[in-house]
């Protein structure tokens, strides 16, 4: 897996607004992508996934968009709530060995 630098990008949004977190991935052969939420003191928690044969997938309040042309993923969170405060990571699964390659995390801060 990859590691990112010490200084996480931060996204600050007003409670109730929508949040969009972006991620670039590296391997054009990756066929499965996952978004994780990591709260302080906890392990990464699965939010939503998408396979490479799709370009959009929706869950409860979350939507993932996949643009394979530019190797870009985004996570949209609707009506952001205080409980959404966390660091969000995207990850791609390499089909050859089922390993995760991690994107840069983004720290989401909710303003009251």
């Amino acid at each position, binding site marked *: 897996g990859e590691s990112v630098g010490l200084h996480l990008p931060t996204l600050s949004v007003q409670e109730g607004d929508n949040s969009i977190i972006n991620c670039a991935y590296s391997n054009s052969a990756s066929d499965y992508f996952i978004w994780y939420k990591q709260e302080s*003191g906890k392990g990464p928690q699965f939010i939503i996934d998408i396979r490479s044969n799709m370009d959009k997938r929706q869950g409860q309040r979350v939507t993932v968009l996949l643009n394979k042309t530019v190797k870009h993923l985004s996570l949209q969170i609707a009506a952001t709530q205080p409980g959404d405060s966390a660091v969000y990571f995207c990850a791609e*699964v390499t089909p050859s060995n089922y390993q995760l390659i*991690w994107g840069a995390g983004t720290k989401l801060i909710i303003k009251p």
Partner: protein
Amino acid sequence: EAGVAQSPRYKIIEKRQSVAFWCNPISGHATLYWYQQILGQGPKLLIQFQNNGVVDDSQLPKDRFSAERLKGVDSTLKIQPAKLEDSAVYLCASSLAGYGYTFGSGTRLTVV
């Protein structure tokens, strides 16, 4: 479905001491991973098991770190002797053929 169990949750040791972490993956998940996560960074893969065999340990510092998964279920990760730079959260994850990738809550190690 029970999640990935890890213990202990926290550990404080002096440098040059040894420490061991335990992981019980989700039942039926053949693939088990150990990660090291330093504050502010994404997880870094240390070792990947498929059943009781090692798939990838290329990033494991083998002079001080060791891991085993003797019966293809539980796993232990050991550090001996510990260094200050080993202070991190050690995460265990399991998956079924690269899917259902689930993390435990981690063990926070502080080396003083």
